[in-house]
C-alpha cells in the first residue's frame, strides 16, 4: 500500500528524518513508535503530502505522493497531531465540507456522513459547534474527517493524546475496528498503546528506523538478552566476585543499598530456567544470602529502551557513501 524509500527530511542543519525505508502492507494496523521528537509527525506529514521531503520517495497505492499528489491523497485519510477543525462550524457542517472537498459525490454524501458519524460516535453532537466540544469529541470529529471519502489508508498522529482513560479505551477500540477493513497507521509514544492496538510496529528513534515487526517478533529479538534484578546481603565487591565465574553473564551492575544489602542488575546472554539456578548457586556457594531474584519480563518497553540506546549516532561511513548517489529533491 505504502512504500517509503530512503526518506530524508532536513530543516536547515537539523535532520528530522534520516534515510527511512519501510513498506506498509494492506489490512494491518501499524504503530509508529518513538519518543517525542523522533520524527513521527514529520514522517506522517510527508506521507500525507503536507510536507515535502528533502530526499527519497513515497508511493501510496502506486502513486508517488510528490508526482501525483491528488491521486495519492485520495487514498489517504489523515488526522494530524492537532485536529484541523473549524471551531465556528457545527460538526455536521464541517464533515459535510470535508466530504465535498474530498470529492464525495452528492448522492452518496448523506449516506457516508451518516455512517462515519455512527462509526465515530459523533451523531449526538452533530448539531453542536465544534468549538464547544470536549477534547474527546474533537478527536472523534478529527477521526471522522479522516474516514470521509472512504480512503483505504487511515493515518492518525497521536490519536489518544490528551484524552481521559475511558476515551482512550473507546478510541483504541475504534482503531481496532477500523483496522479490520482498512490499513491504519498510528503514531504514539506510548508503548502499551501500540502493544494493545497494532499488528505491526515501526520503531523510530532520532529520525531512523531502529526496528520493525510484530510486537511478538520484537520481543523475541530482545529475548537474546535477559535482565535479573537481584538483592543480596553482601558488599558490592563480594557479590561481583561471586558472580564472576558464572558463564553467560554479560554485565553486572552493583549498587550498595541499606543494611548491608546490595542491589544487582545482572544482564545475561543466556535464557532459560537454568540461568536462574546458576545465579542463585553461585551466590549461595559463597554463603551470600539471596533476598530477591527476579527475572525481568521482556516487553516492548525493554526492546525500545535497548534499541534507543544502541541506535547509532551517525551512520557508518560506507552507508553515507552509498547515500550520496541519491537524487536530491530540494
Amino acid at each position: 500500500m505504502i512504500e517509503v524509500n530512503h526518506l530524508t527530511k532536513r530543516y536547515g542543519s537539523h535532520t528530522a528524518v534520516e534515510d527511512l525505508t519501510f513498506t506498509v502492507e494492506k489490512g494491518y494496523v501499524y504503530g509508529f513508535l518513538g519518543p517525542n521528537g523522533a520524527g513521527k509527525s514529520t514522517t506522517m506529514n510527508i506521507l500525507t503530502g503536507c510536507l515535502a521531503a528533502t530526499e527519497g520517495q513515497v508511493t501510496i497505492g502506486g502513486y508517488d505522493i510528490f508526482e501525483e499528489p491528488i491521486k495519492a491523497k485520495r487514498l489517504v485519510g489523515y488526522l494530524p497531531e492537532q485536529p484541523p477543525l473549524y471551531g465556528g462550524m457545527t460538526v455536521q457542517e464541517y464533515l459535510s465540507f470535508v466530504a465535498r472537498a474530498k470529492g464525495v459525490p452528492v448522492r452518496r454524501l448523506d449516506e457516508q456522513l451518516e455512517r462515519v458519524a455512527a462509526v465515530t460516535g459523533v451523531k449526538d453532537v452533530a448539531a453542536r459547534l465544534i468549538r464547544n466540544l470536549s477534547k474527546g469529541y474533537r478527536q472523534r470529529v478529527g477521526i471522522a474527517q479522516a474516514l470521509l471519502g472512504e480512503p483505504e489508508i487511515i493515518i492518525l498522529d497521536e490519536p489518544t493524546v490528551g484524552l481521559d482513560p475511558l476515551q482512550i479505551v473507546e478510541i483504541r477500540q475504534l482503531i481496532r475496528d477500523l483496522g479490520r477493513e482498512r490499513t491504519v497507521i498510528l503514531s504514539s509514544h506510548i508503548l502499551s498503546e501500540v502493544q494493545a492496538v497494532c499488528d505491526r510496529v515501526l520503531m523510530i528513534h532520532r529520525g531512523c528506523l531502529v526496528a520493525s515487526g510484530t510486537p511478538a517478533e520484537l520481543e523475541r529479538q530482545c529475548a537474546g538478552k535477559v535482565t535479573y534484578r537481584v538483592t543480596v546481603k553482601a558488599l558490592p565487591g563480594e557479590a561481583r566476585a561471586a558472580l564472576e565465574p558464572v558463564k553467560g553473564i554479560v554485565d553486572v551492575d552493583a549498587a550498595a543499598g541499606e543494611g548491608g544489602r546490595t542491589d544487582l542488575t545482572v544482564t545475561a546472554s543466556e535464557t532459560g530456567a537454568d540461568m536462574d539456578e546458576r545465579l542463585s548457586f553461585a551466590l549461595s556457594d559463597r554463603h551470600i544470602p539471596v533476598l530477591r531474584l527476579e527475572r525481568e519480563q521482556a516487553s516492548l518497553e525493554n526492546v525500545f529502551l535497548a534499541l534507543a540506546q544502541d541506535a547509532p549516532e551517525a551512520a557508518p561511513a560506507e552507508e553515507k557513501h552509498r547515500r550520496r548517489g541519491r537524487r536530491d529533491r530540494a
Partner: protein
Amino acid sequence: MTAIYERELDSQLNGLTGYVYGALMLLFAGIYVMVYNLSGSPDFTSVMYSMTFIYLIAIPLLTMRAIAEERHQKTDQLLYSLPLSMAKIVLGKYLALVTVMVMPILLMALYPLVLNALATAGSMSFKSAYGAIAGYILLGLALTAIGLFVSSLMESAALAAGACFILMLLIYFMGPLTEYIPETAGASLAALAVTAGLFGLILWRLTKNGPFAGVVTLALEGALGGCWLAWPDSFRGLFAKVAGQLAVFDKFDNFAYDIFDLRAAVYFLSVAAVFLFLTVQVMERRRWAQ
C-alpha cells in the same frame, strides 16, 4: 473547489468581518452620496472615486483571515492533505472573498437609480455612474488578490491586516510618490539594482534556498548591468515608470473621468492573476519549509 468556496463564504458571513466590511463600505458610500449628490451634483463618479480610499481599510479587513487564520488554527494541514490542487483551494477562497467584496457594491449600484428618481441633483448619467462602479469592482478584484497574498505570508490575521494596510497605503500613494523619483538614468539603475537585491532577499526568505536565491539575484543584477552598458539612455526615468505600474489605485482615475478604460480593466485582472499565482506559490513553498 465549490466546497472551499462555500466554507470561506460561510466563515465570512458567520463571523463579523464580512458584515463589518459591508457596513464600512455602505456607511462611507452613504456619506459620500450625501456630501456630493444630495447637495446638488448629479455626478456619481466622484462618489466612487472617493470610495477608493475606503478600500485601504476594507480590503485588509476582508482578506486578513483568509489564509493566515488557517495557519494559526493549523487547519491548513487539512487543506494540504485534501485531494485538491493548491490552485483550486486558493481560487475557491479568492472567489468567496470576491463575492463578499462585491455584495455592498451591488447595493451601491442601486444608488444612481434612487438618486435619479429623487431628482434632487438633476439628471444622472447612468453610463458614467455604472462605468465607475464597474471600474471600482475591477479595482477591488486586484486589491483582494493582493490582500489574499499578504494573508498567505503571515502567521496571524492581525499581522496580515497590518501588513496589508501598509501595502495598500504604499500603493495608494505610489502615483504621487513616483513624481519625486529622480529622473536621471544613474538613479534609475541604482534603484533597480536595490530592488533586484530586495527581490533576492524575499526569494531567499520564501524558499530558504540560499544558492538558488543568490544565483537569481546575480542574474538579475547582471542583466541590469548588461542593459546599462547596451542602452544607457533607456534608463532615464525607468524606475519611475516601473514604480508607476505598481500604483494600482491610479489606474482607476480614468473610470472617474467618465471613460471605461479597457486597458485598466485588463491591468486589474492581470494584477489579480499575478497575485493569485504568487499566493499558490507561497502555499506550495510552505510545504518545503514548515
